């Protein structure tokens, strides 16, 4: 888009905004429009020359430039004919509707109802054709689990989760202090302080099968480590392992956070940060003959041992 198209789009919203917010703050207004104060000043200088056809002095939009320059306040008048913003573009309304659906995934109770009604109102100004062009679905938990956790966060209460663990493939019942619900990469997560581990942990909501009351409230443990950094990166004990796989197993680079992927003899060499040896063991067992090499080679020892143990158990099974 050209700069003028961007600028005029903004000006068409800025004029009604400044009439709805008399004596608006320059920095606050710039933030609302996602631009720098310098860019906003340039916008105001354009508006200085805009107005009714004919271009006589009384026809132009009036801005008190002294107030802008001296105290960063914006007073705009003489633009009553432009007192409402333009309709949403399809990009605007679609991106907002999809974002609200993501909010819906984490908002429980009354907040969830408010998201539903906001979505319904937006859909009436968008039209059904427009709002269905992008769909957003995350792996859902039962609504009851999310609502229970949202309530626990609001009340500052500890809970006992029944959790079908992912990396260890085991059901556990940790007592946690819930902190925040987050949507990341198609899943809803609970960020919580784990009392068993005395550390921050994330739990995928679709794997929480029950939430029960636990004793005690929530203590101040500071802020959890940033989620975006990748949960593997934040653990000091994570080890760098590289595995070479056939083309058939290239999908792992799309499913797990990988350090690098490069073409190698027979397939792909993928570098992974491994925080939990049990996770790597399960991955190697799953990929089986599609794994061509592991470096360091000892990283594959526990997968080999698990396979041998399984074979021993099979030998002891009755063959019917």
């Amino acid at each position, binding site marked *: 888009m050209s700069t003028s198209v961007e600028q005029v789009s903004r*000006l*068409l919203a800025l004029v009604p905004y400044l009439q709805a917010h008399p004596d608006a703050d320059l920095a606050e207004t710039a933030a609302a429009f996602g631009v720098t104060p310098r860019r906003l000043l340039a916008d105001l200088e*354009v508006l200085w020359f805009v107005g009714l056809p004919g271009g006589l002095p009384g026809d132009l939009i009036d801005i008190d430039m002294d107030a802008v320059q001296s105290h960063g306040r914006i007073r705009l008048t003489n633009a009553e004919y432009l007192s409402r913003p*333009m309709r949403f573009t399809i990009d605007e309304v679609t991106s907002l509707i999809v974002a609200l659906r993501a909010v819906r995934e984490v908002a429980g109770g009354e907040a969830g109802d408010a998201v539903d009604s906001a979505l319904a109102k937006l859909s009436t100004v968008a039209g059904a054709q427009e709002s269905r*062009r992008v769909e957003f679905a995350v792996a859902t938990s039962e609504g009851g689990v999310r609502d229970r956790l949202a309530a626990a966060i609001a009340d500052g209460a500890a809970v006992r989760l029944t959790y079908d663990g992912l990396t260890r*493939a*085991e059901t556990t019942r940790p007592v946690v202090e819930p902190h925040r619900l987050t949507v990341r990469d198609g899943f809803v997560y609970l960020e919580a302080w784990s009392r068993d581990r005395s550390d921050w942990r994330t739990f995928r909501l679709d794997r929480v099968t029950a939430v029960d009351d636990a004793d005690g409230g929530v203590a101040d443990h500071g802020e959890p480590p940033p989620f975006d950094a990748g949960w593997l990166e934040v653990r000091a004990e994570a080890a760098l392992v590289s595995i070479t796989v056939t083309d058939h197993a290239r999908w792992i680079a799309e499913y797990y956070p990988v350090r690098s992927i490069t073409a190698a003899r027979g397939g792909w060499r993928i570098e992974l940060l491994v925080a939990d040896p049990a996770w790597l063991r399960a991955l190697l067992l799953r990929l089986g003959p599609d794994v061509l090499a592991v470096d360091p080679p000892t990283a594959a020892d526990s997968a080999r041992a698990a396979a041998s143990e399984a074979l021993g158990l*099979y030998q002891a099974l009755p063959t019917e």
Partner: protein
Amino acid sequence: MAPRKSERIMNLAICLLLARRFLDKNHLREVVEGYGGLSDAAFERTFERDKDDLRAMGVPVEAGSNSTLFPDEIGYRIRRQDFELPPIDFTAAEATALGLASQVWGTATLAEHTVSALAKLRAAGVDPDASRLSGLSPSIGAKEAAFEPLWQATMTRTVVAFGYRGLPREVEPWILTYRRGSWYLLGLDRTRQAPRMFKVARLEGEPRPVGRPGAYELPDVDLAQLTRSLEPAPADTSAVVAVRGDQAPDLRRRGERVDRPDGLPSGFSAWRVPYRQEGDFVAELCGYGAAVLVLEPLELRRQVIERLTTIAGGGR
């Protein structure tokens, strides 16, 4: 110069918005600041470009004639009811949700679209404020390089060309859908004349627009159902497996407990689990190592043992 151009387009927009009838070009040339002093050819060019720019930003510039006798005398106007955001009113709780929504997108272009949508709502007197929902932090990422060009094409109904599985495709993009952390494009594959689902991460090269926007209509079918039908087929058979203790929850939650006490190693319970024969169930079972044993069918057990033998032997 850009500021002059922005001034001129704003003045044109205001003039057309206030017009009670269609205004012809000659009239606009006289009254709109910025058109004076241009030669005939320069005015024609500038006016056409300004009109296109207004339409590109979504301003409904209407062309028509005031006269039924002389319908060739074309003029322009903007109808206020087509231009203005219709009355829309949000409760405080709804406005809070909208404020949080503006922080969701993790890609720059989409984040800009939500910010400008929120700016319009603020201009209409709504006050979105997310600070009340501090325990929530949803986010949508789109790391796929092809995502933004596909979004653009889907919004404008523009055909796109890209490579997929080694073949060149021409696709009418219908719907972008996000599930389990990945974006998919559902559309009509013109090459095959059939609806297809494409994983956006697997597109080969940047998708290129083909032809003009608005080139097709979205079909009148149940797109949600079509999306589901293009997903992997459901299970067609079942196996009985032994699971150690609380392990392998994914298998247990898909299956049901069965009574099978004879000869199980201690600490194991038996479960009947549905699966799809053509899928990668053997690989999944091997992933559990010594925590899961196949009891039946025996052919499945044989395949698992064969694969485990390769792994245990090192074979590399």
